[in-house]
């Protein structure tokens, strides 16, 4: 039957040529898009490394010299780090608050990124020669507890880090780059800031991604404790801290405003005060907006392509049915069953689609060869090709079947005598 259909298709190559060209282009474009969806989707659903549920970011400010309640210099006997610590303590004491931490340009979904050159003291690797910069996150130890960050062997990072001065936590990507899977990474030391200082690695965390659409990168946490806390807070200014608070249950913005209202003067320490609150999820939305819009754009382009396939198939087959009414009549008169007839039509459409496959595979190989696919976030695997090709052809086959169904239904309803009329 297939051979017969191929013969028919060849005879109709003039009209088939157009629809074949269309199928070819649509299959190519569709496959590229399905592939980007595969990458986005797989990346999105991989573990993120942290958890922002019920976490809010407080906005801090410094009182203006003219503002009521301003503590003038002559009466001010404190410092930025002390004020900030005091504020953290005051807020943590509230029974509805689960945890409080402070970061500088390092909060999840903040746009902040600080980089610092680091290299291992004892690693005999590529990194030991030159100093490469890595993203550094400045966080107080409670950060790990608040954002539920774990070590790569399943423990709590917070337990490893609490109370320790001058310690850093690195991600497994950095550990791999530095030590190539050597054991006992914890306790080794790294140089940072131009070989002047060394810090001890206190723990290796799980992979941390900066958002759902990125892959994990090598980065490290500098723990703000003791002297480092004081110098960092004084350097940046306490009001620039990203003050994160995890509540014990989910709050709405209104409830949160009321909660802050109820805190009264516990939100102020000397000239440092809290004047606003935003859920981290709000920053997350802002961060992911771009990717989501891209996805919608791709979706609409795909829908457009598929609708066109539908139109093209319906148009081509409709014309063909009209031109071949005689042939159909003859077949029916000679005893072809309606179902056989229908099957012929469907097989013809799907054959047309199947013929695009070899060309699309060549196209795919070219894309791989020219490195036009996103291989950075997701590796090229047989699975990836199978799923993306499968989905592409499934979508197109569905569209073709719907397109054929319409004219075929009309054709097979024809009475054989009437159809023969055209012969």
């Amino acid at each position, binding site marked *: 039957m297939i051979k017969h259909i191929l013969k028919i298709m060849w005879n109709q190559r*003039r009209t088939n040529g157009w629809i074949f060209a269309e199928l070819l*282009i649509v299959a190519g474009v569709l496959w590229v898009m399905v592939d980007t969806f595969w990458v986005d989707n797989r990346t999105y659903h991989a573990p993120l490394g942290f958890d922002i549920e019920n976490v809010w970011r407080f906005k801090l*400010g410094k009182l203006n010299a003219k503002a009521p309640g301003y503590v003038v210099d002559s009466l001010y006997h404190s410092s930025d780090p002390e004020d900030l610590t005091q504020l953290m303590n005051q807020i943590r004491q509230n029974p509805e608050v689960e945890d409080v931490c402070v970061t500088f340009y390092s909060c999840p979904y903040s746009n902040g990124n600080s980089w610092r050159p680091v290299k291992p003291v004892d690693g005999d690797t590529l990194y030991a020669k030159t100093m490469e910069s890595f993203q550094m996150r400045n966080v107080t130890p409670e950060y790990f507890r608040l954002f539920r960050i774990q070590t790569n062997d399943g423990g709590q990072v917070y337990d490893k880090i609490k109370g320790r001065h001058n310690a850093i936590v690195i991600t497994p990507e950095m550990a791999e780059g530095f030590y190539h899977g050597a054991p006992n990474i914890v306790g080794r030391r790294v140089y940072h800031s131009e070989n002047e200082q060394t810090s001890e690695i206190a723990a290796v965390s799980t992979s941390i991604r900066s958002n759902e659409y990125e892959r994990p990168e090598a980065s490290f946490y500098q723990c703000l404790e003791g002297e480092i806390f004081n110098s960092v807070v004084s350097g940046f200014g306490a009001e620039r801290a990203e003050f994160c608070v995890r509540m014990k249950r989910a709050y709405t913005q209104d409830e949160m405003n009321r909660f802050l209202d109820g805190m009264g003067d516990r939100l102020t320490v000397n000239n440092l005060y809290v004047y606003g609150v935003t859920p981290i999820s*709000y920053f997350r939305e802002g961060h992911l907006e771009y990717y989501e819009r891209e996805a*919608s754009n791709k979706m609409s*382009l795909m829908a457009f392509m598929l609708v066109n396939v539908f139109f093209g198939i*319906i148009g081509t087959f409709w014309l063909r049915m009209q031109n071949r009414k005689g042939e159909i009549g003859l077949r029916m008169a000679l005893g072809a069953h309606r179902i056989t007839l229908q099957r012929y039509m469907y097989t013809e459409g799907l054959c047309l689609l199947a013929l695009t496959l070899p060309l699309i595979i060549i196209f795919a190989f070219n894309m791989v060869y020219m490195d036009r696919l996103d291989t950075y976030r997701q590796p090229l695997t047989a699975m990836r090709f199978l799923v993306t090709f499968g989905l592409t052809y499934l979508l197109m086959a569905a569209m073709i079947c719907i397109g054929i169904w319409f004219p075929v239904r009309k054709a097979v309803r024809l009475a054989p005598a009437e159809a023969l009329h055209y012969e």
Partner: protein
Amino acid sequence: MIKQYLKQAFRLLGENKLLSVISIIGTALAICMVMVIVILYIAKTAGFRPEVNRDRTYYLSVAMSVGKDDGRRLSFGSIGLPLIRECYYPLECAEVTTAIIRDRWNNQSALSMDGLKSSNGKVIQTDPAFWKLFSFDFIEGKPFTEADFDSGIRTVVLSEHVARALFGSERAVGKEMKLNFNVFRVCGVVKDVSRFANTAWAEMWIPYTAGTEYNTYWSEGINGHFNCCVLLKEGVTEEELCQEVQSRIAKFNSTLSDCKADIGYQPNSQIMEWLNGGNEGKADMAGAFLRYGIILFILLLVPAFNLSGITLSRMRKRIAELGVRRAFGASKGNIIGQVLFENLVFTLVGGLLGLCFSYVAIWLLRDWLLVTSLGDAGLSGGMLNGYVFLAAFLFCLVMNLMSAGIPAWRVSQVNIIDSINN
């Protein structure tokens, strides 16, 4: 003759309804998709109130500070006031230079004096030049004055909806309100601004001297909280502006001790700012337009295949008729012209429908189509102008040529005897 073609085209339209519907809807969909892209492009680049001067506006939104000796990068982001004062305010190529602080992420709390009514919104802190660069529609009052600005007097311009939320009407000039718990006096009320006005959009505008952040800067004044916009003087070219900016930056750098400023490829024109604003590298304009070109081409090509198939089979049915025309002296060009013209009628009907679809689509899908970095925006008058129609017509012509060109050529090539024989 054209009348004849028209008549014939409409006859054909009625002859095979299904095929006509398919070709018209196919065209309409393609034109709709293309026009959505065009309309969004216009909204992002063409001038409209209050950003009426977009064609002459140049953006200096970021600066990088690097170590003077080792070239180590220290900071990359918004600009500090000292750099602006030294380099950007005195620019001779600029008619107007304005500096803006905007917190894109946080709403500021605005309260009525009794604290009962509130309206949280985005605030722009700026200078009096802002009101010259952008032309707002003032419902009442005026922008804050040079004098207010110089003495850091707390005055605020509200947008219509904030005024209504706080005072119950747009008549709010002279009244007082609290912004971030400080008392401000309202000096003007403006009509709400389209969010496509990426630079000028806010809900409240105050002099930056009345805020607290303007004097915060780091890296010896290179980085801070500001973004800058300049309006090019009439008759001055972009290159002259770039040169002046670079020479002023070089001069400023020579006064610094430890770091130097690097502003990369800025100032950016409107299109470059839209494509690449805030990024370090050079805007890949050619690449971006190529990408758009490919998308538009595919959008037109795929339906063109459909239509070509349909047109060809329609024409093949009429080959006898065309043969007779040839026999009576019509040239090949005449035949091609006839086919193209008849087809153009279909395409234009589809195109008009498509343009209507595109506005409906934009309105229905505004949630994700019109989301700017500032939030969602509505349709605005700027989206319906002559250019849109011109573009739609041009794309129809292209579409027509793509979908009927080959069929027209093919039928014109058929031998006269063969075609009459048909």
